[in-house]
């Protein structure tokens, strides 16, 4: 996919930062490529997190992450209107369980007011329990912040990348960067060259939005002056039967190192509890642990006493790409053209759309010419959520296209037409389908739908069934009776 042509911007990393930047750059007459090392965009940090667009009162305005938080919050809402990913403006209830915490949460509220966050309120215990009757009777008061939302971050990033693609950005997956060559010493105007395992990409500017691996990428460019210290967060999803146990994001009073264990409704009607916060060495460690589960549920029960491990339907762990500076590492480097967008830890997901705008400004300062396209189209047809339509609309869709009446996933009621739409937008692995449509995310965890999805993926890509993967190279699902397992399956691409 890479070639001799010199792009204006090569973005390394197809997460929230890379995708929102790709979209922002797609407004202009520019040649942009977005490289993702995994099988699909949003398969890294952006996939495994709490899925919250933060209220924006928590982070100090003295930090870059604090300054980007509220503009980012507004940015996601706009993207939601344009693209139709799942986002619910459920608000945040920040709970105090003793008098000291009451003081602390009011300080956070005042910080929010200074940052211009509208609508926050200080609630009495009574008011809090009226709004959230399943909270502990120990509650002493709370701060209400109506700006907080829950969303499907992976779906959001996938649709943002898709709209960038529709506007001309090249999205290249399974592109693991193995080296970055500097410009020719004799001729410093030659571009940076990004080498991946399979291709070569040249760019006047290279953006390092590589999440957990941003320090490694900086090293390739010879400018590693920060370290990424992965901080693991374990999350537990509870059965939909608990829907309504809380109707907003319930925050404990934060400690100096973490926002603590949250209990929140998800866009899809499940309840999520988590995360933990543990610094780990292994950037590939997505494991959940017994200790993590115990910690999450002990903490969650302090807020909502009836929360139980028995209701877990799925669990996952994500790694936050925390930099050793404890703030975002954003800006030009000594390597001309190489710009960092690294260390994007919480509330980095929230801030991403604002960070994208900041990066566009930085690129302009560095000499990138920005000429707006007349035909830029920021909106795209919203994905159909069949299960959320009323019967008349469902009947109308099914009359037009019988594939809307063919069920693929029974737990989440996902139809063949929705799965095909996701594939048309770039999904080419089981996880890609899952994160775009929710197939396989329900109670049976794919027992029923896996085969149907594998058939559709194979047909859509024109590949044999054993080449269908869970999430790209090496993640084969089945093998032929006679052959050895496919260990290097390349999908899509």
């Amino acid at each position, binding site marked *: 996919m890479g070639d001799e042509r010199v792009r204006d911007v090569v973005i390394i990393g197809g997460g929230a930062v890379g995708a929102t930047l790709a979209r922002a750059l797609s407004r202009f007459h520019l040649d942009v490529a977005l490289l993702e090392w995994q099988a699909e965009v949003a398969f890294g940090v952006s996939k495994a997190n709490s899925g919250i667009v933060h209220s924006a009162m928590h982070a100090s305005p003295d930090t870059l992450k604090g300054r980007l938080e509220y503009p980012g919050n507004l940015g996601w809402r706009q993207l939601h209107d344009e693209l139709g990913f799942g986002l619910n403006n459920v608000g945040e209830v920040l709970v105090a369980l003793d008098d000291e915490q009451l003081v602390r949460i009011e300080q956070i509220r005042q910080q929010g007011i200074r940052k211009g966050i509208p609508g926050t309120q200080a609630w009495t215990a009574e008011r809090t329990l009226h709004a959230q009757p399943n909270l502990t009777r120990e509650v002493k008061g709370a701060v209400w912040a109506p700006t907080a939302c829950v969303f499907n971050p992976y779906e959001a990033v996938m649709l943002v990348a898709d709209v960038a693609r529709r506007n001309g950005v090249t999205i290249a997956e399974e592109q693991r960067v193995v080296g970055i060559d500097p410009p020719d010493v004799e001729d410093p105007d030659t571009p940076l060259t990004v080498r991946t395992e399979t291709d070569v990409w040249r760019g006047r500017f290279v953006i390092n939005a590589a999440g957990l691996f941003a320090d490694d990428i900086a090293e390739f460019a010879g400018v590693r002056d920060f370290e990424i210290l992965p901080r693991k967060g374990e999350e537990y999803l509870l059965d939909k039967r608990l829907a309504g146990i809380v109707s907003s994001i319930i925050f404990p009073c934060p400690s100096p190192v973490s926002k603590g264990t949250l209990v929140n409704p998800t866009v899809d009607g499940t309840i999520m509890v988590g995360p933990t916060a543990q610094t780990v060495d292994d950037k590939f460690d997505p494991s959940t642990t017994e200790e993590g589960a115990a910690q999450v549920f002990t903490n969650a029960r302090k807020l909502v006493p009836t929360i139980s491990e028995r209701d877990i339907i799925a669990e996952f762990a994500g790694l936050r790409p925390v930099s050793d500076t404890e703030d975002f590492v954003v800006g030009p480097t000594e390597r001309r053209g190489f710009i960092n967008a690294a260390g994007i830890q919480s509330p980095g997901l929230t801030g991403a759309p604002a960070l994208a705008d900041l990066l566009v400004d930085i690129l302009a300062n560095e000499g990138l010419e920005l000429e707006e396209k007349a035909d830029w189209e920021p909106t795209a047809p919203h994905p159909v959520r069949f299960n959320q339509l009323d019967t008349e609309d469902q*009947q109308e869709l099914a009359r037009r296209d019988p594939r809307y009446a063919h069920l693929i996933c029974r737990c989440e009621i996902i139809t063949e037409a929705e799965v095909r739409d996701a594939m048309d937008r770039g999904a080419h692995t089981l996880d890609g389908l899952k994160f775009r449509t929710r197939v396989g995310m329900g109670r049976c965890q794919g027992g029923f739908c896996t085969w149907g999805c594998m058939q559709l993926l194979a047909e859509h890509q024109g590949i044999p069934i054993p080449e269908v993967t869970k999430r790209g190279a090496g993640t084969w699902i089945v093998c032929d009776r006679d052959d050895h397992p496919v260990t290097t399956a390349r999908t899509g691409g």
Partner: protein
Amino acid sequence: MPITAQPRHLLSRYDVTVVGAGPAGLAAAVAARDQGAERILMVDRDPEPGGILLQCIHSGFGLHEFKQDVTGPEYAHLALERVVERDVDVLTNTYVTDVSRELRVKLMSPDAGISTVDTGSLVIATGARERTRAAIKIPGERPAGVMTAGLAQKMVNLHGYLPGRRAVILGSGDIGLIMARRLTLEGVEVLGVFELLPFASGLGRNVVQCLHDFDIPLHLSTTVVDIHGHQRTDGVTVAPVDDDLQPQLDRSWDIDCDTLLLSIGLIPDAELARQLQLSLDPRPGGPVVSSTMETSLPGVFAAGNNLHVNDLADWVSQEASAAGAAAGDVALGRHRARQDVTVTPGRNVAYVVPHTLSTERSQTVSFRVKQPIYGDTKLHLGDAHQRKVRAVVPPEMVTMKVSPKLLDGFAGDTLRVDAIPVEEEEES
């Protein structure tokens, strides 16, 4: 050869609607028709009727129901022949998304679109689903290559693909045992079956025929404590457990494998029951039912594995026949059998189905024991009936036929079902 019987058009009202065309649904539809109900609809989400039977290509089915030893697909075929002889509307590739308490059924089908039909009575025959990794919280990574035994069975037996080359099986449920043998026959190396409990969860005959006969080790009181692999599974860690079922990690060992199959139990698929707000019995996980398998919502019946997980398809067919016949009666406005005796699980009994009995009709009580008793065992149905059996084990369902005569004089009573060793009873 698949038998299909797609209706030319869907009626707006049926006497009896059967959800699911596995062994329960097929038998219920037949019984409802034989009871005189004329308009019967049976729907199934899969492309062909037969349910999970279709992927159970091993033998051992049908000894009771058809008096011959047949495979799952053959059993399905025999059961389906009875349906086809009887003019039942069968709609496949169809999913019931919603049933109102007024018994309006909403279904989605590529052939019939998004439709609603009204029904006089409803038989829920949706079967069971497998417990997943999430249900038992195995810590570790999330590589490809971890799947339920039933999904692997579908991949191998219906579609001809293997789940991997070196497999470990966690849980000794029947599907896991059957798959241990199946995979061995397919050339997959099965490195062992690991069972948390001190006894196998599957039938004794399957332990012998599927493991012992193929030299596949069964590790009791041992479980998987970690799964390794960033992409595809490349190993698991197993450890013995103590008497409290806690893993002894200092005695753990690693196994190099690319596949982990889970056979850790089935759960009644009671989603429709929940949606209809039926009373549920938490222990088997299905609805509370009368002696005719009628649930807490009049006109709604449940039969088969969505009620409680049976050990044999034959029992499912028998139970569903009772449900289907009663559903036919209700649709036709006939008298319901009086439910005047309550049954409840007692000593060493995990659950009992049904939950009430009738002094007007014969019925079968089914239950599972909690602990195995490897010797003479006395079964009690309160003071109404007792029977001695040679042994009882949790994997094998125990049944008692209860005639109206046995219940004479017990109307209004609650009868406790016990399963205790004969010696213990003599002592007490």
